[in-house]
């Protein structure tokens, strides 16, 4: 049961420069837990101190924002892609 997590440029410094990480898990929450278990420095960038996903980081299961599904409890299937999309502001 491998799920691919796509890592944005801004966070690749914490995943040994990997743009994608393969992890195991049954829900979005479990695969994110597996990701931060492997790359501990990522945790504060994804989760607030109370363990909730930060508001300026969106997590998508395939094309859908998981907040519009069952959030971190959303089930993932083999071959699903989870994307982390943080807010960026550059333009000049």
């Amino acid at each position, binding site marked *: 049961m491998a799920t691919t997590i796509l890592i*944005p*440029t*801004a966070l690749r*410094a*914490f995943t040994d420069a990997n*743009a994608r990480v393969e992890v195991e898990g049954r829900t979005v929450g479990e695969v994110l837990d597996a990701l931060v278990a492997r790359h501990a*420095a990522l945790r504060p*960038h994804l989760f607030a101190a109370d363990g909730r996903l*930060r*508001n*300026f980081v*969106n997590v*998508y299961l395939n*094309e*859908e*924002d998981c907040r*519009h599904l069952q959030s971190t409890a959303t089930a993932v299937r083999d071959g699903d892609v989870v*994307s982390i*999309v*943080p*807010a*960026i*502001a*550059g*333009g*000049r």
Partner: protein
Amino acid sequence: MSEMPPLSREEMARYSRHLVLPEVGLEGQRALKAGSVLLIGAGGLGAPLGMYLAAAGVGRIGLVDFDVVDATNLQRQVTFSTADVGRPKLQAAAERLRGINPHVQVDLHQVQLTAANALDILRPYDVIVDGTDNFPTRYLVNDACVLLNKPNVYGSIFRFEGQASVFWAEKGPCYRCLYAEPPPPGLVPSCAEGGVLGVLPGVIGTIQAIEVLKLLLGRGETLLGRLLLFDALAMRFRELRLRQDPECARAGSCQKVRGLVDYDAFCGITPPAAAAATVAGEITPADLAARLARREDLVIVDVREPHEWDICHLEGARLVPLRTLPEVVDSLPRDRPLVVHCKLGGRSTKAAEFLRASGFENVLNLTGGIRAWIDSVDPSLQKY
């Protein structure tokens, strides 16, 4: 939109490749001439936007920016030439746009967009384009568009990555549906700190320009309800679904924006007056220079990356990239003052907090980073 204006013989010749497109044609070209667009930010995104929209014959183009052209802009802001360095951006941009197409009216708003002036500046335009470079202005532009019920063509870039979408609160999601809150200051580096590939704003800005034309023509499918992601390193486009907040969708309009607010406070930014005052734990470049001249036994810790160190560094400094700090923290002396610095002061603030939390009692952060040092102490170092 105003009455459709006629096209002169010269305009007909100029727009010939549009006129033969059935989706544009004479009627569409006149709609473009009747249309107006406001570009907020005349920088990396604003450069291709302004030039292509002028060339395409959009009748009225407003530009909002208060900056002057800097040498570091030329790597990506292709509106400007080397000779423009030091000139107001709007002056140089207006010349370029009028040179491309004299039939276009170019309005210049040489001000910083604020909650006080935003509604008046945005009101006369059909389409608003967000090409700014900071979170407070992005939320301000979004909220003003929500209140005025205008489409907001969004583009954002960072390093090798870009995002684009169209927000329109009456018809779908707005920026607050995408990100309800901004990240705290310092967590997401700016392009000045983090860098940006010069061509990237060209890709995202031209995508925004296409969306503007489609909105004015009323043709095609815009990015409304979709977030387009571009990764230049992987050369991959992806598309994610962007849904309106269910509560706003039920109400038929945005329920989060009631009026304009203090956007610096919303984004957690300290007012400049307070930031400029001497802050405990900070040291100015002039003070550091004075202490070094007195041969005080300071340790300067540069928390930038090796490729930045190669461009310029302070004499006698020790390179410890921020991400490696936890590994080498035990090798730093605890009995001497530590002065930490980066390029602009963002990363070194985090380094100073980490060192203090690790028990270092005498840690000073160089205010404004090596950029401020070069500006006020040693201009012989290479600026970047």
